[in-house]
């Protein structure tokens, strides 16, 4: 087997050095009734690379990649172009096959890019500090709520009606089992509606999304002031981080904690994972932050270097008193993010964001002219919501047969809320062409 270096002669020599007759003797501590006599039944045996490529290639061929269709899907996962050099860097073995940088002398590569990543995330979100990444936006949102609970010593989170349902459900799951209350508002295009009425002395935080799940941009400054007055933290979730190249960041509107999905920069769609959760906060809350933090210091010769720091917050030191059980971050996805954003720079990110916005407004202009379609979103970045005259899931299903991934239907995100069934959320990015847009509008007119 190509991954196993030992010859039979090696194994025999090693067993002799150990003083064992067979490898079975090394498993003597396993209860006899639990020892399997041979390979597990019902599974295939060793295969060549070529055979594995055939099997997995056949499975992959049963999927219809977004790139093979005119795709307008968003809702927390966006198809962007990733420059070739990003994946080249990510696949360098010194990054790909390294471990969490506990030995900083031989991990300065990882540590320096994490320091650069933290800086990039802080700048994009308009916040003071950022950590070295989380699993994804949904889990980062949970960590933000739990951090707010620690900071305020309260235990109730208010969730906007325009928060991505996956983020909402993930927070609700943790609320049920970690023992905090969640007041989730029903789906509502106006993500700020009803929040202030729920703010009370028990409220630790309010979670809103920006742009919200319907793509809408809303001014958060009034809500930030109301939260501050009530002693609660304002948590803002960003589903599409490219938007920060075009719109005012949440940090400038009074957010206390910002979480975001970083997939859009550097990472493929991957059917939903692995992604990279971004986590940024005001500096005064630093010691309550979850996850890995990379900091600058000097070495024994006085040279600048980087280390993981403030680990007394973490599980491997604090055990049951840790701020979170989180152990890994999303290192490679964070690296892809850092490389892609370094390539873009200030100029490139702004141009990319402007192009995304222009493609989306071009899309809106075309779709608005389709009979029966009503545009629901006013101010937006690259995503907006439509109301269709019929069930949006059926429309999406039909359009998939015509080569168009027509967005995310309300019924997929809110299966238990019939009022959302005719809502369709569509996004456009730089990967779309004007021809894609024309095709979408024409096919939509056909099926409505």
């Amino acid at each position, binding site marked *: 087997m190509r991954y196993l270096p*030992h010859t039979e002669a090696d194994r025999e020599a090693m067993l002799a050095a150990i003083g064992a007759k067979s490898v079975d003797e090394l498993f003597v501590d*396993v209860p006899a009734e639990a020892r399997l006599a041979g390979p597990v039944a019902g599974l295939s045996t060793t295969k060549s690379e070529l055979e594995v490529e055939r099997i997995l290639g056949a499975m992959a061929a049963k999927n*219809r990649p977004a790139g093979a269709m005119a795709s307008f899907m968003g809702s927390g996962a966006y198809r962007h172009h990733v420059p070739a050099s990003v994946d080249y860097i990510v696949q360098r073995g010194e990054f790909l096959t390294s471990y969490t940088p506990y030995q900083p002398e031989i991990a300065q590569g990882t540590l320096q890019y994490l320091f650069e990543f933290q800086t990039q995330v802080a700048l994009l979100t308009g916040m003071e500090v950022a950590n070295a990444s989380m699993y994804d936006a949904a889990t980062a949102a949970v960590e933000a709520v739990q951090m707010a609970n620690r900071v305020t010593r309260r235990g109730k989170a208010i969730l906007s009606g325009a928060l991505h349902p996956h983020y909402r459900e993930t927070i609700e799951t943790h609320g049920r089992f970690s023992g905090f209350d969640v007041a989730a508002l029903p789906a509502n295009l106006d993500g700020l509606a009803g929040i202030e009425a729920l703010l009370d002395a028990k409220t630790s935080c309010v979670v809103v999304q920006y742009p919200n799940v319907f793509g809408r941009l809303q001014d958060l400054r009034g809500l930030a002031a109301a939260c501050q007055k009530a002693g609660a933290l304002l948590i803002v979730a960003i589903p599409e981080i490219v938007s920060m190249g075009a719109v005012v960041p949440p940090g400038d509107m009074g957010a206390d904690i910002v979480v975001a999905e970083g997939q859009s920069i550097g990472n493929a769609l991957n*059917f939903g*994972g692995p992604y990279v959760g971004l986590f940024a906060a005001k500096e005064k809350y630093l010691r309550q932050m979850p996850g890995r933090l990379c900091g600058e210091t000097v070495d024994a010769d006085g040279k600048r270097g980087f280390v993981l720091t403030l680990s007394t917050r973490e599980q491997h030191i604090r055990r049951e008193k840790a701020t979170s059980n989180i152990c890994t971050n999303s290192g490679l996805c964070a*690296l892809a993010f850092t490389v892609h954003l370094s390539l873009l720079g*200030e100029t490139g990110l702004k141009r990319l964001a402007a192009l995304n916005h222009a493609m989306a407004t071009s899309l809106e202009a075309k779709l608005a002219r389709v009979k029966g379609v009503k545009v629901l979103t006013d101010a937006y970045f690259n995503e907006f919501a439509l109301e269709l005259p019929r069930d949006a899931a059926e429309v999406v299903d039909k359009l998939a047969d015509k080569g168009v991934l027509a967005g995310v239907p309300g019924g997929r995100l809110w299966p238990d809320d019939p009022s959302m069934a005719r809502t369709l959320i569509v996004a456009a990015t730089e990967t779309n062409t004007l021809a894609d847009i024309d095709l979408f509008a024409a096919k939509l007119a056909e099926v409505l």
Partner: protein
Amino acid sequence: MDKSQGRVARDTAGELPPVVTHSGHRGLQLEEKLIFEQGVPGRIGVDVPNPPQGAADKLGAFARKEPIGLPDLSEPQVVRHFTRLSQKNYGIDSGLFSLGSCTMKHNPRLNEKMARLPGFADIHPLQPVKTVQGALELIDELARWLKTLTGMPAVAMSPAAGAHGELCGMVAIWAAIKAKGEGETRRRVLVPESAHGTNPATAAMLGFTVDPIPADARGRVDLAAFEAKLGPDVAAIMLTNPNTCGLFETDIKRIADLVHKAGGYFYCDGANYNAIAGRVRPADLGVDAMHINLHKTFSTPHGGGGPGSGPVVLSAALAPFAPLPYVVHGKDGFRLVETKEAGAAPFGRLKGFNGQMGMFVRALAYMLSHGADGIRRASEDAVLNANYVHARLKDVMTPAFEGPCMHEALFDDRFLKDTGVSTLDFAKALIDEGYHPMTMYFPLVVHGAMLIEPTESESKDSLDAFIASLRHLAALAKQGNQAAHFHAAPRLTPRRRLDETRAARQPILRWKPAAPPAPTAQAAE
């Protein structure tokens, strides 16, 4: 043929002073500034097409007007920057990575190639399910492999990492307890002192009281202490097997039986499953829930700290509580269940979308490559390698416990007694020898612990060279008067020991532009 080429020049001039370079570089050890210190406005590393003409502006009042503060660079600069950074890193591709408990085995590049097939990488998580039947088939097939290998009837695929899997398993246990009406009373979780830090952290996150169990002199759970702690308020035991001392818990079946008899559940931390995969089925040990780190046992890359993937196999008692979403096979092909259906009691959603698909593809590529026979052989070789290290070092270092061990060999610091050399110093000296150090000071139950996990990826030659370095260092330490030498290590790395106290006391967590120089009195005039 010019025979002078490549000839080693003999230094006949005697001792030379240390090399001091003008650039600060030292040959192939290249200094590299932060990306933020290299930007020049006007450069660009991605050519972005122009937007279509006449497109409307719908940003309203939300247009970002202030500069973001990102540096502008060209593509060659960015590629060189990250290439230089990569060269300051040690990976499995570089050499033996003895880090115990972390399972740094070879990461096949076939896995990477398969994960990048557009049919897997370029599909949106919310595409209509009829357009992603192959993706659902892959998840279902990986689930079948995991269930068959472990003998468990169900598996939750969505957890994003090992610790996330622990959370999933413990939530499932709590959901089962609540369903029996014991949610208020069963609030205590037993956790051995040797456990990974994530175990008590996970239990505490869920509001359980963590009750530690001591280890016995053999490095296993102290059975008497465990039995004494059982009671009607015990929700579960969280036990790593093989344990963090690299030993199989010989009483594991009795522990499982006793905790079940007391009405609790057995959560197994599967971080060390790579020692027994294909040789032992956790179902046969009485396990109720166990996470499997695909990035350990099934070779998906650690990537400098993630992304991981931590599916959780579940017993029949816990299966109904498995989280959303999950894949089922119906008459019209595969379905993705994203909401509660009749007959199930899912405890909810753990993360966005459908799990770590990219990691699933890599893990299945690895499993198919090995097959059931290869997986068994890999476990055997991992155990063989650890025992070989144990056997070849036991005369110069001090094994914490008698052998045989499983996939990792644990030493304590008795052999360093009176040498002035600490476990940390010893490990740092190993860096100068060209190796990634072992895990240090873990598990906590052993003094000055050094936990070595060579994995099955290392050849006998590679192990012999590694063992020779350790024997050399052990002899050097025992020679006496070497404390300063060890304490100064490593000396041959891009950076020497870093001041971690300073990093924590004066946290600098991001780059900031240098403040403009204060105006002088003259300039102010």
